[in-house]
């Protein structure tokens, strides 16, 4: 590793003052003859990138170039050209990629919302065919931001590519115990089941039980209700015919719960039943209309326009029903 690895280091030496770089002429940023933008860099940044441009131009593959890309990546991890060039050097010098994993891990932990660092990590794992550190790394990142999209994407890629589904539902469970509204965790639950057992009748029954008990804990939880609706996509009978769900929903409503998500699912159950010819009289257009009004006026006023739109569409559909045929 470099003696000059941190730009916060007081001993940091500019590249122009390093004897081993004296043979290189730095290449300043050239924004064309008529500069469209005048740029003033901090000294470290300008110095490092002027040398970086110079080595890219002469296509130098060397230890010092590798060290330079490390400084450049630390100064600006979002610069994708630096990472690409660094990979050329790693290949060219046949470097120990495990060391590189450690390097990029440090940057990921500091810059976890950056596409380039995660992509670099992915390429290294592909080259090494070694996913053994990835679950730990993503867990570390998710422990600080449980919804980090990059971390989830990387984790899904690793799990799918190397078939590492074992234990993943337990991990999801852990995250949901910490924050039951974590939409990323609910999504991961779907990802795991979809790619392993699939939504068989038995799995569906268990998942519905699980989800209903989570909803019982906190009923105003968009993610859990959406997951329940996702499960019911796999129920051939549809949204409104699952006896467990129906019993749960009615019991909750009877207990005077008015979570907008509860009311919304009953609206959709009504519309499904009406659309199918009204098999269950408990789920009528009239009930849907009343619930939409309640949502609009009392329980989901932020979305009043949406519920008005729903009311209008129920009205026009039942209007068509009476005037048609």
């Amino acid at each position, binding site marked *: 590793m470099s003696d000059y690895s941190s730009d916060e280091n007081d001993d940091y030496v500019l590249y122009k003052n390093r004897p081993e770089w004296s043979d290189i002429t730095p290449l300043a940023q050239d924004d064309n003859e008529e500069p*469209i*933008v005048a740029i003033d860099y901090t000294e470290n940044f300008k110095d490092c990138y002027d040398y970086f441009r110079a080595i890219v131009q002469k296509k130098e593959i060397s230890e010092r170039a590798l060290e330079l890309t490390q400084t450049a990546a630390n100064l600006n991890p979002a610069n994708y*050209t630096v990472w690409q060039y660094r990979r050329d050097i790693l290949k060219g010098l046949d470097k120990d990629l495990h060391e590189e994993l450690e390097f990029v891990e440090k940057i990921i932990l500091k810059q976890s919302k950056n596409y380039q660092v995660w992509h670099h990590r992915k390429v290294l794992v592909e080259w090494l065919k070694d996913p053994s550190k990835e679950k730990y790394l993503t867990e570390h990142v998710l422990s600080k931001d449980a919804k980090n999209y990059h971390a989830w994407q990387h984790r899904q890629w690793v799990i799918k590519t190397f078939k590492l589904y074992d234990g993943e539902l337990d991990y999801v469970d852990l995250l949901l115990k910490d924050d039951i509204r974590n939409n990323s965790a609910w999504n991961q639950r779907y*990802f795991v089941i979809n*790619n392993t057992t699939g939504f068989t009748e038995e799995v569906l029954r268990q998942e519905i039980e699980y989800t209903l008990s989570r909803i019982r804990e906190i009923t*105003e939880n968009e993610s859990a209700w959406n997951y329940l609706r996702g499960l019911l996509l796999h129920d051939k009978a549809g949204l409104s015919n699952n006896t467990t769900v129906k019993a749960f929903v009615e019991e909750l409503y009877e207990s005077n719960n008015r979570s907008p998500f509860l009311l919304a699912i009953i609206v959709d159950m009504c519309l499904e039943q009406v659309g199918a010819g009204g098999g269950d009289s408990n789920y009528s257009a009239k009930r849907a209309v009343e619930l939409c009004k309640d949502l609009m006026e009392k329980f989901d006023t932020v*979305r009043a326009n*949406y519920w008005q739109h729903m009311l209008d569409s129920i009205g026009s559909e039942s209007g068509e029903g009476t005037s048609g045929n």
Partner: protein
Amino acid sequence: MATIIKDITLQENIPQNILFEKHIDFIKEYGQKENNFEYAMTDYLRISGMYWGLTALELMNASPPHTIEEISDYIKHCQDPESGGISSCLNHDPHILHTLSAVQILCMYDNLKAIDVEGVVKYVKNLQLPNGSFTGDKWGEVDTRFSFCAVATLSLLNRMDAIDVNKAVDFVASCKNFDGGFGSRPLSESHAGLIYCCLGFLSVTNRLDIVDRDKLAWWLCERQLPSGGLNGRPEKLPDVCYSWWVLSSLTILGKLHCIDANALKKFILACQDTESGGFADRPGDIPDPFHTVFGISALSLLGNDTVQKVNPTYCMPQHVIDRLQLKPQILDN
């Protein structure tokens, strides 16, 4: 039974209108100040930055800070003669994000002749994988953002014939989730920004039939918070850029009327920096061109007639899309 909602509280004395003069100065001066370290740090997204700034100026009926020749010449020098792709700035590698931004800028100024158009077509075509998806560059990151960039670029060049559109649609369709939304890859979490990319893609390819329209419209409406602002996923804070991504999506679905437009307008106007100009992600934060163009575009979609009409699919002035005779699919109310 109060539920804690992740949101912000708007302050009093929110500006009633768009602060045009301030925003125009902000965009024109951005990056031209002494010691603008942030600008140097963002050379990896320069061309996209130009697209944000120049589009914002055009929507505000302001002229660009440079001549069209200067702008075109800069873009021309960013085109890689070998691959045909366009990079973020000189000495960088080409990427599909900047290729689209460059084509958008040149279409706006009716100056596509500045670049090798066939080179761009070849570049985009070569990024398509056998499963229909697109990578962003030669290194192979796959994401539905790049599917959108590919078809937006090719449709602006009137060269959709260059790719396998059916397979491209299959890939985007495979990224549709159980909640009606879309993610970056199959079974990745739904995210408003990626939903915009997928709906934009389906709008360009005229394949909105694969969308669960009502379900998705509800999910998008759920993004509105009591402050009026919109978030990008459940339990996240509101942000002006999602005003664009959610609103353009609802517009494409023909469901714009489902949102509380007045509350959202108030939120967006509150994100203006009344001193320096520009829009920030949230009131009081530091403004930038990215949030500025999306704030102005969102206000345009909401019917503000002091700015130009914006096209929801391309995020470009509507008069440009009309001139190119493009008719991206938009569903009726």
